[in-house]
């Protein structure tokens, strides 16, 4: 289902959403870059082509959050979950790769064992995407099942078309919020939208090949070679829309869940002093295998959306796309 709106009309709609929803979207922070943040006015939104530095994952799987608190002191023995936030939220301007990342995280957190903190945030959040028309040089979503105009995981997806936006409505939630926008695009406008999508796809130049399986190269010396530059900073895991490894930490009487990552040497360090992934080689190999082999074996697709963040922000210029592309299978 398609709708079309003048850019000013969409701004008015967004200002309307602010009455009922906490609205989050990309904002330009001078000297820092683009960050997803709550907005108070449609004018706050940055709906241009630059990418947000951090993925929207942080609004669902939070960098650190308390899960429950408890105490074992006399007279006050208890263990209680932290109440979940109740407000309705809308995130506007989510990139197709990031919405796809959430669909992948659902396979981890919204399964037979539901992670309530994540699931409740997913359920009460409407996602309105923004298609990419000038993908970055490190983007490779089309090589891994995505595209700059893919609507997977969204409730609605917006396409910038000159002075107007074409709005592709995907779900009932998307239909509900855009019911104030009754105008459908005419034939000409639909044709223009379709050619716009083709152009966007064509603008994504980086293509990689992903081996069917990495089984045969688990023991290869390749992993030692490609991981030698890694400084184990873990920025790739924090900025990845699909990385979901976490730690559970006792902080006084509360249980804190916070991001953790396979890049860190203590991630698998046991109390005995043993460590099954003692060097960067084992740790980086785990990262690549998890994303491009194990997850596919378990869930039928790769745990990577090709957003290129880990490449853009790696301080030593490691490039997972090229590493996978050139894997000596």
């Amino acid at each position, binding site marked *: 289902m398609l709708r079309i709106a003048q850019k000013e009309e969409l701004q008015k709609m967004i200002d309307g959403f602010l009455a009922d929803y906490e609205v989050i979207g990309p904002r330009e922070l001078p000297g820092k870059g683009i960050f997803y943040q709550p907005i108070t006015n449609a004018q706050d939104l940055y709906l241009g082509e630059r990418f947000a530095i951090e993925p929207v994952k942080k609004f669902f799987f939070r960098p650190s959050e308390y899960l*429950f608190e408890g105490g074992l002191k006399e007279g006050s023995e208890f263990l209680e979950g932290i109440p979940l936030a109740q407000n309705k939220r809308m995130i506007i301007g989510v990139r197709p790769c990031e919405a796809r990342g959430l669909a992948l995280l659902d396979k981890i*957190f919204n399964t037979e*064992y539901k992670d309530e903190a994540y699931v409740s945030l997913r359920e009460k959040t409407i996602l309105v995407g923004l298609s990419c028309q000038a993908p970055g040089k490190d983007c490779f979503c089309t090589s891994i099942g995505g595209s700059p105009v893919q609507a997977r995981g969204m409730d609605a997806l917006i396409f910038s078309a000159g002075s107007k936006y074409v709005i592709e409505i995907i779900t009932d939630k998307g239909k509900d919020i855009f019911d104030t926008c009754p105008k459908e695009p005419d034939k000409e406008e639909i044709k223009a939208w379709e050619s716009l999508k083709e152009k966007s796809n064509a603008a994504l130049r980086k293509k990689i090949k992903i081996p069917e399986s990495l089984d045969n190269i688990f023991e290869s010396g390749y992993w030692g070679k490609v991981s030698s530059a890694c400084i184990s900073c873990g920025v790739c895991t924090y900025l990845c829309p699909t990385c979901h490894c*976490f730690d559970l930490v006792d902080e006084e009487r509360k249980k804190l869940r916070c991001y953790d990552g396979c890049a860190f040497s203590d991630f698998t360090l046991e109390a005995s002093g043993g460590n099954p992934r003692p060097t960067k080689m084992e740790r980086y190999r785990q990262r690549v295998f998890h994303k491009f082999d*194990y997850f596919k074996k378990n869930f039928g697709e790769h745990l990577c959306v090709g957003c290129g963040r880990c490449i853009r922000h790696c301080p030593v210029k490691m490039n997972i796309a090229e590493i996978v592309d050139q894997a000596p299978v």
Partner: protein
Amino acid sequence: MNSLYLPHLAQITGIKQETQDIKTFKLALLDLSAGSFFNYRPGQFVEFSVIGEGEAPFCLSNSPTRMPKGSIECSVKKIGKLTQALHDLDIGDRVGIRGPYGNGFPVEQLKNKNLLFIAGGIGLAPLRSLINYCLDKRTEFKGITILNGARTPKDLVYQDEYEHWRKAKDTQLHLTVDCQEENWACMVGVVPKILETLAPTCEDSVAILCGPPVMIKYTLPVLLKLGFCETAIITTMEMKMKCGLGKCGRCNIGPLYICKDGPVFNYAQVKNFIH
């Protein structure tokens, strides 16, 4: 809504000092409505926590056939911060328990088989659960052979149960220690060497082993040499765990998560990933 990671409160009802650094805790859940919790299988584990100190996985070390409903046993070796905190607890103290998690031993596969249990040190804990389970359902299994090793006689766990195991029908218990000590009448030598000497039959047999990585590493080739096929060698694996539910991402061996797909695996499943 309760968090997936929220433990049930349990009370320590018994503590037994097994060795200098291993204690067995008997625990009773305070919330008897904690439903499914009480149905565990040998080989499963729980996340055991001292609130404010931390949480770690421990196997359930006694058979469900021997525990009152809502009670469990865990044996804990003092080795780090959390296990030190656990060892400092007394009867009556409250702890947190999440679980039971993991697949447990494939009991159906073991029926009408000769069972060869091979344990090293605290590795006897998950096997003890299965041994006692099998002894309580003795007619469902064929011969039982237990080979249990430890560094020294003082490091042998569950010593007060050995007599019961020895007396059970068609059951043999072999004890070995790495170094000879005074008044030690059983065998001396590391587990793989003793296994070679005992040379138990592989016919209609399943080997179930648990122990330190070095024991596993050198015992596997002996079992293969004795003719055990890869799917008839069953082991329980351990790695650092946090969630116990296949989410936190640290305990995988290849595509398999020890917490969710294990901790019990046959050798064919994990041979490419253990060294």
